[in-house]
């Protein structure tokens, strides 16, 4: 019910923006989309961060093979079936086709082609070399041009810089929330809502009292680091973990750390003359993104290891790692056995939890999570 309320309110929020004459730009891509550019153009960025179900996945099979990532399937299904809770999707004016992964390309293309939404392009380099950064800058400039055509005017550099600062502050706030002592479910709800609304929600975030968590502090539960794929809005996975006696302490996922750690340093902001260079700089600094090759795995392992060691030092306990793999996710699935083996060698418990969004999975997932927590 809480999610229905969130989505219904979000519909009203977007409707209001539309009435103000603003246009909405949606995208599936998990990472590297410069939402500041969209914001600076006076448009509203909308992240597709909604979990699926059997109906949504089935509906996508008219367009893509069933062996497409379950999240991508569900995104298509949301446009195809148009369930009441996703009413706000009707308000979308533009959709960015990007290459976070090939399923992102294919599903975004289907959404623009078959559901009559105008297409924007933004493709991201895979490596992080000097030339890749130069290419990323080309894409930024190209997207800027596309957005300026929609706006009918140039995007002012100062306005863009202000947007960058605004999103920077927003991410810093989310980092604070991440460090707060509260349940995983509360953190997740805040992250999800915040990433949906963007910096407009900052005043609400400022008013959360972290000293007195809204839910009971889970002192007896087993702490978990969630990595891999995100838990999206309307997903039951976090409930299963908490019902099993676990608590997600750290969301090492796109909805979570991968998003809010991408803060641009103040000295970089102050010293840069070109805001596009700042966005390029942030792309360079985004070393944990799963889109990039060839160092994603080793960075992921070392990041989790550092977190785990610090946690152990602080609490004297070991943290468990759940690697959440949405079925047919290229990035997470292919690395999953290596990630598990490498972390195991370092004495870290890992559960590779692969699933799609079908209801039938719930029981099996629950059993696996419980067994893992018990083993811990």
């Amino acid at each position, binding site marked *: 019910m809480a999610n229905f309320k969130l989505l219904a309110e979000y519909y009203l929020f977007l409707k209001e923006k539309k009435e103000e004459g603003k246009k909405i730009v949606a995208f599936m891509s998990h990472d590297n989309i410069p939402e500041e550019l969209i914001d600076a153009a006076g448009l509203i960025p909308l992240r597709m961060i909604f979990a699926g179900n059997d109906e949504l996945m089935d509906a996508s099979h008219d367009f893509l093979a069933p*062996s497409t990532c379950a999240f991508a399937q569900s995104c298509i299904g949301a446009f195809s079936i148009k369930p009441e809770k996703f009413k706000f999707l009707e308000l979308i004016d533009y959709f960015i086709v990007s290459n976070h*992964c*090939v399923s992102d390309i294919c599903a975004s293309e289907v959404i623009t082609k078959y559901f009559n939404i105008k297409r924007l392009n933004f493709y991201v380099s895979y*490596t992080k070399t000097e030339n890749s950064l130069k290419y990323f800058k080309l*894409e930024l400039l190209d997207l800027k041009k596309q957005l300026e055509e929609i706006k009918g005017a140039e995007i002012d550099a100062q306005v863009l810089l202000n947007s960058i600062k605004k999103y920077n502050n927003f991410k810093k706030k989310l980092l604070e929330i991440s460090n707060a002592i509260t349940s995983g479910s509360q953190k997740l709800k805040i992250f999800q809502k915040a990433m949906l609304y963007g910096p407009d929600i900052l005043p609400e975030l400022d008013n959360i009292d972290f000293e007195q968590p809204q839910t009971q502090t889970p002192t007896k539960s087993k702490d978990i680091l969630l990595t891999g794929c995100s838990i999206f809005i309307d997903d039951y996975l976090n409930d299963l973990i908490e019902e099993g006696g676990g608590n997600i302490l750290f969301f090492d996922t796109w909805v979570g750390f991968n998003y809010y750690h991408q803060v641009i340093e103040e000295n970089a902001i102050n010293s840069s003359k070109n805001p596009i260079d700042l966005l390029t700089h942030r792309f360079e600094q985004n070393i944990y993104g799963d889109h990039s*090759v060839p*160092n994603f795995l080793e960075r992921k392992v070392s990041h989790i290891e550092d977190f785990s060691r610090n946690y152990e030092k602080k609490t004297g306990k070991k943290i468990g790692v759940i690697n959440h793999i949405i079925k047919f996710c290229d990035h997470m699935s*292919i*690395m999953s056995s290596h990630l598990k083996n490498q972390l195991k060698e370092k004495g870290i418990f890992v559960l590779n939890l692969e699933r799609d969004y079908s209801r039938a999975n719930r029981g099996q997932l629950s059993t696996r999570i419980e067994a893992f927590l018990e083993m811990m």
Partner: protein
Amino acid sequence: MSIVADELIRFSSVLKMAYNFLHGRDELKRKKFREKKKLISVGLPFSDLVYGFPDLIPVLPIRMHEFEIHKYLTYLGSSSKIFGWDKVTNFLGFVKDLGIKDINQTVEDIIENVITTINSKYNEMYDIGVENGISTDFCYGVKSLYGMNVSKGKNCEANLNYTIRCSTWNKYLESLKAIGNASKQIWIEIPPRNIGNALELLTDNITQGITELEEISSYDYSANALRKHFQTANQIRQSYKKIIYDISTSDFYPCNPATFCEILALLNISFHDYNSNAIRYKDSITLLLDEMKGRINKGIGVDVSKRPKILITPMFGGWEPKCHEIIYELGGRALYGDWDLLRFLDDIPISNMTDPVEAYAQFLMNANSHGIGADNDTLTDSYIKLAKNMKADGLVFVQVFGCHSVSNCYTMLREKIRRELEIPSIALNFNKMGENVEQVRTRLGAFMEMYK
């Protein structure tokens, strides 16, 4: 009894190519240990840059495996070193014409063995890949490539990795670091789109890749050596395209249509690394084209004018090899042309360019922009273009389980086929060779009914 055996022996070039493919292990071992050459692992037809260095040898890792080769093919291979391939195959043709049953049977065994051996080795690689931890959710191609690298990657000094639109491919390449081989990973990023000075960036990326190859090689990069190789590579491409377009679209084949498909399948596999010897491969494919033309000119072959042309694609990442045999039995003829679809058969524009690196950058950017494509709209246009150019009467689309890239666009393609080609099409699901043959037979049976 193989329906292809009768015909394959007429082409010495085919036996030679098959022998060079299957005997790769011995040859590569010799090169590596006796001649101190260094092996560079490649996947997809991205081997060209390696040929710029005389002591580096590109290899599709499956070729480092030992194949169970029919003893007579081994004998033929040895004989050919003394007598030449022409004489060996002429002799086989001669004894076959005599109708000596035992010899006929042996010859057929040899040829059948070549094709089934390669396919079963691919399946073995698939199994090795899965046993070593790659998820079964990935496509056949990636699973088998993973298996090849797990089992034989350690013999290579480096992997030459190009990024493409398929994220599974890019991540599979990254995962090679984790399988425990000490091979160096050389990355060349192909910018996803040709915007701004992306071509210039690609040129620079290739230059950096060359620098890394130079670190492995005992030779310095030579523009002349690379240019010379590109000329050879272009000759290979020209002969390949003539086989695909001039021969396979004609009404008279130099052999029966199923045999023709076996040859195309062999070309498809061996094109990845030119069997580690581009000049020899160029000679073989040129000879193959000549042999085909020669037979057609002499009226030796099969009238196929009544057989509908069925394009089977994509097949480079795995397909059911029985398809062409079934289509043949059902009165049609199958066509394959994947590498041209992905624009790997376009010329490397060396003649117009002074710098071979720039020429190769242009070639790769073209393949990325117009072949394999940045998105499905481009990719489906490539399928349509191939079907048009091959004058296909029907299209069998291979929907590879776990493929999120080149075979994940059938809905869009089907619409374009209806609108632009007006030919029947069908999608066949594929997971592993030999897994689903009866279902394939039933579906193709229904499909081919449309032509009766």
